[in-house]
C-alpha cells in the first residue's frame, strides 16, 4: 500500500521577527544615545535659621571663624582662621589644624560639636566655598568619611 506523505512544511508557523527586531534596535539606539556617565552628586547640609535664632547652641564654645579672602577676580587669596591664623591657600593645612583642634571627630548627630562660621568675600568663586566646607567637614580615609565639624553657617554678608 502506498502512503501519501503530506507536505508538513505548510503547517509550520513562523514568527515574524523583523518588526520586533526593528523596535528592539530602535530602543537600543535610544538608550545608547541618551546614556551619559555622570558623577554622583551629594549634599552639604547647612542649617541657617533666621538671624537671631542662629546663635551657637553652646554659648561656651565660640564658632570657629573662617575668613576667605578673594583676590578680586574670584580666586582664593588667603584663608584666615579666627582672625589670626593664616593658611595661605592650603586647605590641607587648615584640615590638619581642624583635626588637631577638634580632636576626636564628632559624630554626624552630635549637637554640641563645634561650629564653623564662614565669612567670605562676595565675589569669591563658589567652588572655594565648597573647598572650605569640605576641609572643615571631614576627610576620606579609604572608603570611609571621617567627620570633623558638621555645623556650618555663613557670617552676615560683607
Amino acid at each position: 500500500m502506498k502512503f501519501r506523505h503530506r507536505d508538513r512544511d505548510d503547517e509550520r508557523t513562523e514568527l515574524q521577527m523583523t518588526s520586533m527586531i526593528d523596535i528592539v534596535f530602535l530602543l537600543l539606539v535610544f538608550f545608547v544615545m541618551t546614556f551619559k556617565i555622570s558623577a554622583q552628586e551629594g549634599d552639604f547640609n547647612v542649617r541657617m535659621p533666621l538671624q537671631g535664632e542662629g546663635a551657637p547652641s553652646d554659648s561656651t564654645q565660640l564658632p570657629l571663624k573662617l575668613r576667605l579672602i578673594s583676590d578680586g577676580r574670584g580666586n582664593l587669596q588667603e584663608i584666615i582662621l579666627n582672625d589670626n591664623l593664616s593658611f595661605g591657600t592650603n586647605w590641607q593645612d587648615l584640615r590638619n589644624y581642624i583635626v588637631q583642634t577638634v580632636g576626636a571627630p564628632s559624630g554626624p548627630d552630635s549637637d554640641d560639636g563645634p561650629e564653623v562660621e564662614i565669612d567670605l568675600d562676595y565675589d569669591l568663586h563658589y567652588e572655594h566655598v565648597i573647598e572650605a566646607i569640605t576641609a572643615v567637614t571631614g576627610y576620606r580615609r579609604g572608603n570611609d568619611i571621617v567627620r570633623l565639624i558638621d555645623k556650618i553657617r555663613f557670617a552676615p554678608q560683607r
Partner: protein
Amino acid sequence: MRIQKKDVKQAEADLTPMIDMTFQLIAFFMVLINFSQSEQNARVVLPKSELAKPVDAPIEYPIIIHLTSDDAIVIGGDTISLDALRVRMAPEISLLELEGKTPADANIIIRAHRTAPGGRVQDLINRCQELGFEKFALRVKEDQS
C-alpha cells in the same frame, strides 16, 4: 517535457543569541539611565568635593534652585531674578501649607555653578531665610580624581 521542481533549501540564521544580547543591552541601559537629569541644568557645572556622597534617603519637600554661570536663578524651569524669588516661591509655600507644613520643613537644594560668586549664593540663602526656609543643601559633584 516535465520540469522537476528543485527543493530549494533556505538558509535560516539563528537569531536567538542576537536577540538575547540585544535585550540584555537594553536592560543594562534602562537600569543605568539617569532620570534625575530632569533636575539638572546644562548651565550649571557643580563644584567637586571628595566628601560628596549620594543621599541615602529621599529628601523631604525638596525645592531645587539652580544658580547658573550667568547669574540666573532657575526654579522648575523658570528663569527668574532674585527679586522675583518671593513671587515664585509663593505657590511652593502654599503647597507646603496645604500639607500642614511650614517653609522650615522644606529643604532648599542649591545647585550653583562652580564659578558663581559665593556672595550670590549667600544672597539666595538670605532671601530664602526671609521667606522662612531654614534647611539648605549645597549640592556638589563627587570628586573622582
